[in-house]
């Protein structure tokens, strides 16, 4: 059993770092009372419990657990880290191109001592017409214990998890979800003092993640919400910790019913107004072709929704600027902003490795006993 999974007690014995909001609640007592608004999906029990398919099916205790694991794994020595999943086998199954997600999953697995195999649609039997199910069964037969899937079709990870019975980590499925991205975004926010003032450590997460952790915090997500899995995962994750998520964009890229995705989500079409309330502003990549297809004038879009230094200084001089990447400089944001002091874009990427290590340990940690109430 990997040490990192069960050392809650040791983490809890660390010198007290919790002070704000007067909470001293640590560990299990708090776990039970921290059920966020959970959107239940039926027959969750047909999936391997180590799967990470959607933020929608995570409760607050799952989220705390993952962030805590990320902290612990990150703080281990290189050698200790490399023992965590020594000799375990993971497969990266990528039906779409990716730099950040693929590389950080790969680095995460390698740092933990696991082996990874990359299978991409361009250089495999997928090109010959092999189905998702058969590809999954083949990887399982070859000894893969966990599959990390990036796929252009929404729902493919859930299907693969049903077909194989293996833990499947969703590395982005169509416009549906990108759970590890949202979790690393949350880690980035906490590390930057959003909703928490003070050092971040395992105990912080354990005791501090509750339905009010991000209360009164406004997270503005801007751009092509309609096609963004990052927007959906964040909109489902952050309100579980009390945050307000404000979607911002033109109607073609942000339908009115997007606000019904879950509690704590609203729409503000005026970017400047949204910025004035923002604690975090998360910009999304804009595809030129998509704008053209929707007959949105590029210059008009830039005038209305680009995050540039003037706009940032005027309306949100203290907000944290985030972007899941890849960024298109000069389109959704300017270089000045991307490289500026408010930007956490590179930091997000760094947090990604730790979150993905945690997702892998959670998937492969194996004999960990389920915490009561953690998962039905």
């Amino acid at each position, binding site marked *: 059993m990997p040490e990192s999974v069960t050392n809650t007690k040791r983490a809890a014995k660390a010198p007290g770092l919790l002070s704000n909001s007067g909470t001293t609640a640590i560990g299990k007592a708090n776990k039970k009372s921290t059920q966020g608004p959970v*959107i239940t999906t039926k027959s969750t029990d047909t999936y391997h419990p180590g799967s990470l398919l959607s933020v929608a099916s995570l409760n607050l205790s799952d989220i705390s657990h993952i962030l805590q694991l990320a902290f612990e794994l990150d703080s281990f020595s290189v050698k200790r880290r490399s023992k965590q999943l020594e000799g375990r086998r993971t497969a990266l199954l990528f039906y779409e191109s990716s730099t950040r997600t693929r590389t950080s999953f790969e680095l995460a697995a390698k740092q933990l001592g696991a082996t990874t195999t990359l299978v991409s649609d361009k250089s495999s039997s997928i090109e010959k017409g092999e*189905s*998702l199910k058969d590809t999954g069964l083949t990887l399982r037969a070859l000894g893969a214990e966990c599959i990390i899937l990036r796929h252009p079709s929404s729902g493919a990870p859930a*299907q693969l998890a049903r077909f194989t019975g293996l833990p499947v980590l969703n590395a982005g499925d*169509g416009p*549906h*979800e990108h759970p590890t991205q949202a979790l690393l975004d949350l880690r980035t926010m906490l590390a930057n003092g959003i909703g928490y003032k003070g050092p971040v450590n395992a105990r912080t997460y354990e005791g501090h993640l509750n339905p009010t952790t991000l209360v009164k915090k406004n997270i503005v997500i801007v751009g092509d919400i309609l096609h963004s899995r990052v927007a959906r995962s964040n909109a489902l994750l952050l309100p579980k910790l009390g945050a307000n998520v404000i979607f911002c964009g033109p109607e073609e890229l942000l339908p009115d019913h997007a606000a019904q995705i*879950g509690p704590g989500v609203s729409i503000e079409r005026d970017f400047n107004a949204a910025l004035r309330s923002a604690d975090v502003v998360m910009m999304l990549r804009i595809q030129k072709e998509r704008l053209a297809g929707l007959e949105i004038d590029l210059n008009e879009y830039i005038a209305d929704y680009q995050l540039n230094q003037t706009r940032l200084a005027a309306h949100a001089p203290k907000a944290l600027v985030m972007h899941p990447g890849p960024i298109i400089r000069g389109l959704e944001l300017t270089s000045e902003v991307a490289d500026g002091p408010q930007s956490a874009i590179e930091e997000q990427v760094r947090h990604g490795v730790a979150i993905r290590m945690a997702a892998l340990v959670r998937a492969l940690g194996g004999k960990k006993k389920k915490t009561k109430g953690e998962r039905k």
Partner: protein
Amino acid sequence: MSEKPILIRGGLLIDPASGIEANHDILLRDGLVAAIEKPGALTGVIQHEQPELIDACDLTIAPGLIDIHVHLREPGQTHKETISTGTRAAAAGGYSTVCCMPNTAPVNDTADWTAWMQAPERDGAVRVHPIAAATVSSMGEELTDYAALRDAGAVGVSDDGKPILGDEIMKAALYAAVSAGLPVIQHAEDTRLTGGCSMNAGPVAFRLGLRGMTVESEAAIVERDIRLLAEIERETGEHPHLHVAHISTARALNAVKSAKKQGLNVTCEVAPHHFALTDESVGDYDANYKMNPPLRADVDRTAMIEGLLDGSIDAIATDHAPHAEHEKEQEFERAPNGITGLETALGLALKLLHRQHKMPLSRVINLLSTQPASILNLAGRGGLVVGAPANVVIFDPNAEWVFRSRRSRSKSKNTPFDGWRLPGPVHCTICEGRVVYSVI
């Protein structure tokens, strides 16, 4: 007919056509209903004719169900279903008549194919009435020969799945169909608005990251077709019959309601899944919840129930659409549309309409048999009167059963209702005097 006569005794006979709802015995002879009498009155027949006796004590006897919208996949897609397997599923579901859509491979757009589907070699367990293509290859460009199709046995024309979008061709189809005495059955979907869509548009589709078909994409075609009907009436005095297939939205139903008020000849059907399920069920990306029209929002589902209760929906039809497991196991967006439905329709109608909404049994039978027969002018069917074809279903509305897809008679098992507990197990189905399904 060499079949033995059949005497069904002791059951409650419900015939919406004649308004009978009483304990009656019924004698079937030579493929026809020979006598319907008070309990015991036909006892003399037993010694005289030695009929096969069916004890229907505590059971309900009704005219065999009629499904005016099924896909039997033959010719061309026999890995999904054949006329033989599909009609056996129909028999198990209480149906003695099915009307099969023309989207086979090749498309049924000729008298020859229409006749082929009804040939004894197809081994249909129940009566098959083809619905032929309204345009050649269902391409929406050139009308087929409606009179020839009718003479070969077609009971309607439709390009189901490939709606007729052009105004002129749709108008021509309605006009030609009225001359041939056939209804035009339209799958109402403006496919110019639904490219790449795999479920209902709305908040659920947004959350799941799937492109959604809007309510407008259905309603716009229904509204357009009704406008064309009115034009033809005005211009020619003809009274063409438009039948709206598998209606699924409140807005399209409102259009049908107001057309009926205007006296236009419009009818519509609804599929059981559209009054039993909503788009929330798509949550796990199980393609057994994927069909076209898609499962809609609850406001639409409720409107379907209301339309059935208030009579504005004329019939329940299954849109039985079998697909092989490997086809349904693809990515949700890639998986084909459709679910099987022949064995669950009666149970779902009884569960949702009779039990939950207190619809009388005779109304349920009316929607599943009498009115479907009348929509497609299936003479003598949909009722139990002396001289009518001996089509009978015997079921138990007071008992329950559990539907198991693996035990389905259909060649395909793509259903969202696996494991559902439903009322009304079918005990016996009789088609033209032959027992085609029986657990008695």
